[in-house]
């Protein structure tokens, strides 16, 4: 019998797993990577990178001093402009960008900010965004154009952008703190750095996608290279570049709010953090809503830039602004005194309090069931999670034997029916479930991941996985990495199932998509940070809350890509299936689902990356693993730990990304796409 690559890979993983299981009692080093085999990477990084950063410190401090001017300037202008003018200016801008719809969005959005009582804090956040975004856009444009003009750089730039996308947000902050010192400038720079890659990517993509004929027409018109670029190629790539502007704005906003953990700028992110820490959920909810409103206004308005725009009369814009100016003269109320929604906050507080009090038992049981029967076994294995306290009885070693025997029987049955891969997968799952991800022997993880890498992308990917995982092993972060892997793995698994089903539902039912679509849009607009508020309100600090927050954030791409894949099957394929006599269900199973596979895999890939991104943020509300380390490093200004934990996180994300991409690519090729 010839075995497929996937089957061979699974077989190798099973063999190594069994060997580890059998030999572990005799060789302790098989279970846990011995501490003696690790290198003091943190210290090396601390001193090495610290020394390098010390060199740049004077420059950085100078830059920090320099950037303080535009930032203070923007902050002063926004802080001292009468609020009617700010609101009118936003509405006028909205009018110019997208007509009445956008004007009203601007008007209502900022009015909400005003009555929330967080006007001053919001303006400070906005000031940070205003200064960081132009920086990010300029950097992104320069990098994108450079990468396009000098093809030798393109590979390097793309690889760097890939890595930057996977390095968790908090990990940027520690070295920046060291370089620039405490203060809002760090947030500014972090957000500029974080927001530049999407711009660079879209500039490069846009330039690459300019039609060949357009490019050649510019050459044949006798333009110099500079004229070709400035007058033809960049404008022709305009829409894609505007997509970059939109993404860049959202990234900047998200990062500005995350950077509030550094403190010192009394902005809206800080407000959320503060109220969350004090468990004033009503106020946290209100401040969070302000962030969401900001995000929606900025996102929707800047998104109009990337579409074919109609022309909206500038005069009306000026009229709106004039009305604002007149109002500013007439209505002179200090925004600090406007807090019309404090009542709402109180209501939220009391009703959430009442709800949790009334349904505390139910909420607890949801949480405990999920923990006891789902998360805990996954983390530490059935052998340790099954206790009288949780499951009502004590796991005995003999149960393990029975458990494995059942798995082997089932696997044998599958293999006998020709489904070798399914059988092996069952064995692997049983092994992981019995042992627990956090307690998996390292040779099994290493070989298993490499085997999957081999099935997905051949030897180059095996080499990459082995080297990167080896680095984590040697750095001594292995156990924390496994903990991170467990939580994000659990979340991804849940997202894949629930999101896949929702995506499927949205694909077959128009009504479902009408309901799900605005929810997806909203979830994708909300800055990461805000996800923590609702889960905290109901489930307090802990792993389950973190799990929920990750799921909420990471489920969206799974829904979107699944639906997209299932609904974009070419018409002639569906017609061919129908004319062959397939019913709806058969068409779905035999034609649409296989055709959607690459798209669904890409969705899974995005979900994984989202989960890793959120994992670090979720460290704020209590997770263990790398996220926690990164967060701790930030608090202690420990560059070594921050960098190594950040790198380990990036490695996990990178490996997951490459594995799934490899399978997606293989599916695409198989379908001839």
């Amino acid at each position, binding site marked *: 019998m010839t075995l497929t690559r996937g089957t061979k890979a699974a077989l190798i993983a099973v063999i190594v797993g069994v060997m580890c299981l059998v030999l572990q009692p005799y060789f302790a080093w098989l279970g846990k990577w011995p501490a003696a085999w690790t290198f003091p990477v943190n210290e090396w990084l601390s001193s090495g990178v610290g020394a390098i950063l010390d060199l740049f410190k004077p420059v950085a401090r100078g830059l920090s001093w320099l950037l303080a001017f535009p930032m203070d300037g923007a902050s002063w202008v926004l802080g001292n402009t009468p609020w009617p003018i700010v609101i009118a200016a936003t509405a006028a801008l909205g009018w110019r960008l997208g007509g009445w719809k956008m004007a009203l969005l601007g008007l209502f959005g900022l009015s909400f900010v005003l009555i929330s009582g967080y006007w001053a804090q919001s303006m400070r956040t906005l000031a940070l965004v205003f200064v960081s975004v132009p920086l990010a856009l300029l950097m992104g444009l320069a990098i994108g154009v450079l990468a396009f003009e000098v093809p030798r750089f393109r590979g390097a730039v793309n690889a760097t952008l890939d890595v930057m996308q996977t390095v968790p947000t908090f990990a940027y902050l520690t070295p920046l703190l060291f370089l620039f010192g405490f203060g809002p400038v760090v947030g500014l720079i972090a957000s500029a750095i974080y927001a530049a890659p999407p711009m660079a990517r879209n500039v490069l993509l846009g330039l690459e996608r300019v*039609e*060949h*004929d*357009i*490019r*050649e*027409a*510019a*050459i*044949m*018109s*006798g*333009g*110099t290279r500079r*004229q070709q670029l400035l*007058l*033809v190629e960049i*404008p*022709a790539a*305009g829409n894609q570049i505007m997509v970059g502007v939109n993404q860049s704005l959202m990234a900047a906003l998200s990062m500005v709010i995350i950077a509030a953990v550094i403190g010192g700028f009394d902005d809206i992110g800080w407000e959320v953090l503060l109220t969350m820490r004090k468990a004033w959920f009503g106020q946290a909810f209100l401040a969070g809503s302000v962030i969401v409103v900001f995000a929606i206004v900025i996102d929707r308005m800047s998104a109009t830039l990337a579409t*074919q725009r109609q022309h909206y009369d500038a005069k009306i814009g000026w009229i709106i602004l004039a009305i604002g100016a007149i109002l500013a003269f007439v209505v002179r109320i200090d925004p600090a005194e406007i807090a019309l929604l404090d009542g709402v906050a109180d209501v939220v507080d009391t009703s959430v309090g009442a709800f949790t009090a009334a349904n505390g038992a139910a909420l607890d049981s949801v949480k405990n069931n999920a923990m006891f029967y789902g998360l805990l076994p996954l983390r530490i294995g059935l052998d340790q999670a099954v206790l009288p306290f949780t499951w009502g009885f004590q796991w005995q070693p003999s149960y393990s034997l029975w458990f494995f025997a059942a798995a082997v029987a089932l696997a044998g049955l599958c293999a006998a029916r020709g489904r070798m891969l399914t059988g092996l997968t069952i064995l692997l799952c049983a092994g992981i479930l019995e042992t627990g991800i956090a307690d998996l022997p390292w040779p099994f993880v290493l070989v298993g991941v490499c085997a999957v890498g081999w099935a997905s992308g051949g030897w180059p990917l095996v080499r990459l996985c082995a080297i990167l995982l080896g680095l984590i092993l040697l750095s001594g972060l292995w156990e924390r990495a496994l903990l991170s892997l467990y939580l994000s793995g659990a979340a991804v698994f849940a997202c894949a199932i629930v999101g896949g089903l929702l995506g499927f539902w949205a694909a077959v039912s128009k009504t479902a998509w009408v309901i799900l679509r605005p929810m997806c849009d909203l979830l994708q607009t909300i800055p990461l940070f805000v996800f923590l508020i609702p889960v905290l309100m109901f489930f307090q600090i802990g792993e389950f809350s973190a799990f929920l927050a990750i799921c909420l954030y990471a489920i969206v791409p799974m829904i979107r890509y699944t639906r997209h894949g299932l609904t974009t099957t070419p018409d002639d394929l569906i017609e061919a299936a129908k004319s062959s006599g397939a019913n709806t269900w058969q068409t779905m199973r035999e034609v649409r689902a296989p055709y959607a596979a690459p798209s669904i895999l890409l969705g899974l890939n995005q979900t994984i990356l989202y989960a890793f991104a959120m994992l670090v943020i979720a460290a704020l509300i209590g997770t263990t693993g790398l996220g926690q380390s990164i967060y701790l490093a930030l608090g202690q200004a420990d560059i070594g730990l921050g960098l190594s934990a950040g790198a380990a996180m990036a490695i996990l994300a990178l490996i997951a990304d490459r594995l799934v991409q490899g399978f997606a690519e293989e599916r695409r090729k198989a379908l001839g796409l």
Partner: protein
Amino acid sequence: MTDKNSAAPAIAVEGLWQVFGEGARNSLQKIGTQDTRDTAAKLQDQGLIPAVRDANFEVQSGELFVIMGLSGSGKSTLIRCISRLVEPTAGAVRIDGEDILQASDKRLIDLRRNKLGMVFQHFGLFPHMSVADNVAFPLKMQGAGRSERRARALEVIKLVGLEGREDAYPRELSGGQRQRVGIARSLAVNPDIWFLDEPFSALDPLIRRQLQDEFLNIQATLKKSIVFITHDIAEALKLADRIAIMRDGEVVQIGTPTQIVLNPIDDYVREFARDVPKGRHMTIGEVMEPVGDGPLAGEWPELRTGMSLEDALTQCAATFEAVPVKDGDGKVVGMVRPDTFVKALGAEAT
């Protein structure tokens, strides 16, 4: 351009090679170009792609020179070599005697601003510019002032029949209109040399024919030296003064439309010419015999050497009486005049 070159052909292509791949120039030099087939085979063995193989031809001033071949035959690469949109691997391209492959970047820009115009298969219109701005773009590159640009642009836009659409944007135009803009733009600086890369291939057949006719009209007044690329033999025969047929990067035959149809050099060219209605593309002058002792006195139809075979046949057929047509049993059921008969055949082929 100096005066001594004025007698030179508008375009002269000599021993032109375009080989794609790493280290193509070195490999080509090493192998040498004595035997085209042999060289190409050796290049391919090295993993290189010889897209144009030893092209040689001249385009006279005012001539409409068509390069025809199937997709992948290298014709698009060839026109890009001549316009130096790609850097040829070996050979020379002389425009009015000047080898433009040796021209500096500055000189090349200068040539493009003043002497060369090009039309693209997918139009290549700048999406962010209005029709007038698109057309005026080469003038802008020349450094012409705003009002001058506008005036000239309107002039050319009128020439291609797009008056009144000058402030529209490309996305608002149909395919045919877009290519009119492309043509107008390529003519804006009144170039001497006009490159057209499959300009009508992306259009519907009806629009295509209409634009072909208008293109011939424009050429009749402007008398440019033209290199025109197409994969459509009918288009080539209709437009060309001379045709070059390409296969696998090689120019296999160059000749007038009649020569191509009458004397195809090999099966490949014959295959192209097979479906062509020969009666329309050959003239009676090409099949006539020298006057011998035959009876030439009398009433004869008016035949002229430039007449197409089809027209001549119609004329000749008019001299015959009507012929009876019988049914299966041999009973006469009607009659047919040979000239209507010939016309009907011609009409069918049109």
